């Protein structure tokens, strides 16, 4: 069975496909989250040095991985929309941005809460946390720029250019912050100093999968609303069951 993938590049076909996928992603995400939390809090033992506090990593590490991953995906979709002029790609980028920003915030918040028992301070300017903060600024810049432009086409393309410039900058920013941090010697404690036990790793990967599926479900739901908004004047939207009521 050959699937014509390009068919789904059109909003009219993507909309129902996304609609079918969302419940599956949502349910799977919830199940994996429950499993992950069980593995992380009941099965995995307390850490030798950090005690119970280390259990924050099961939400902190997935959120920070996802925050960076979602930025790259958002920039990739935006770039596709800019280069190939595909409307749906730009809509996906716009849909992903808020989720990425929220994951970045969660990474920062949980990072701070982990830092307090570890290093005694709510915020330490270590390279990773500082880079996360800058990443949050990049997300907010993308969202603000898109929101400030009334014409959707110009908004999509301008924000896409910004996202591309941002993603090129991310390695430069990360490197310079790392440098800055080692020069201003603060604490050298690493987040994952000791090698992790198998159960801890399993819990972390389960939570990572759960967050990933959650992000997909949310982004797809958001993009369906965006599609409805942008395509509201078309025939196929008028014929939709949820519109006809």
């Amino acid at each position, binding site marked *: 069975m050959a699937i014509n993938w390009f068919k789904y590049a059109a909003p009219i076909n993507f909309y129902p496909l996304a609609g079918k996928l969302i419940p599956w992603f949502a349910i799977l995400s919830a199940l994996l989250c429950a499993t992950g939390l069980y593995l992380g809090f009941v099965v995995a033992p307390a850490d030798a040095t950090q005690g119970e506090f280390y259990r924050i990593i099961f939400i902190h590490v997935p959120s920070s991985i996802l925050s960076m991953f979602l930025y790259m995906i958002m920039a990739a979709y935006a770039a596709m929309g800019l280069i190939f002029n595909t409307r749906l790609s730009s809509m996906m980028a716009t849909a992903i941005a808020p989720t990425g920003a929220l994951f970045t915030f969660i990474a920062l918040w949980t990072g701070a809460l982990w830092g307090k028992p570890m290093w005694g301070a709510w915020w330490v300017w270590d390279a990773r946390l500082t880079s996360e903060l800058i990443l949050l600024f990049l997300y907010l810049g993308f969202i603000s720029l898109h929101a*400030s432009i009334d014409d959707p086409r110009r908004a999509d393309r301008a924000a896409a250019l910004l996202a591309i*410039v941002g993603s090129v900058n991310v390695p430069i920013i990360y490197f310079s912050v790392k440098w800055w941090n080692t020069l201003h010697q603060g604490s050298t404690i690493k987040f994952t100093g000791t090698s992790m036990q198998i159960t801890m790793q399993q819990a972390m990967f389960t939570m990572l999968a759960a967050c990933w599926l959650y992000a997909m479900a949310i982004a797809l739901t958001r993009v369906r609303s965006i599609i409805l908004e942008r395509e509201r004047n078309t025939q196929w939207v008028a014929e939709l069951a949820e519109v006809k009521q």
Partner: protein
Amino acid sequence: MKTLFYLLMLVVRRDLILAMRRRADVLTTLIFFVMVVSLFPLGVGPETDMLRKMAPGVLWVAALLSSMLSLGRLFSADYLDGTLEQMLLVPQPLSMLVLGKIASHWMVSGLPLVLLTPVLGLQFDMSIAAIGMLMLTLLLGTPILSMVGAIGAALTLGLRGGGVLLSLLVLPLCIPVLIFGTGAVQAVVSGMNVSAHLSLMGALLVLALVFTPWVTAQALRISME
């Protein structure tokens, strides 16, 4: 004699003449720079040791903020009177015109900051060596700020959010320049090797020179269609 260099000089000359006619815009940005720098001691106290340590960071952040303020002017005047539209239609490469505009913008907003640095550095009791290095890093860095900022200025052309939105977009991208610039001055102060910081800044400058005019031209086309 219509070489690209001739075109570049033409644009630079034109923009400089226009800037001189609106001297007030240029001067107010410089006054802003001086005022921001003077606010820090008022805020944190006059203890000279602390001020000396803060100085490179304070001057660099002030330079960043002043650049952000002045970047709004880069394209807005030409956008409002229709010249920018004409520039987009010209057969010569738009990136050349953009480079010319950025160069003249830097000459009236970045370069004066570099020249003002010794005076402000003395306010913070910086050593001569430190002031010298600070001037060098600002000399290398302010063009980068103008160039990266030009992308932001092109993207936010004619928008309500204006200057603040531009700052929000551009400031994160300027952080590496800030880090290397202040790092070099601190290295000089503590007697360590500056070559790494300076070569990295040089690399960023070259990268910016190669890519930003073209990216800015694309951003202008996006904003103007």
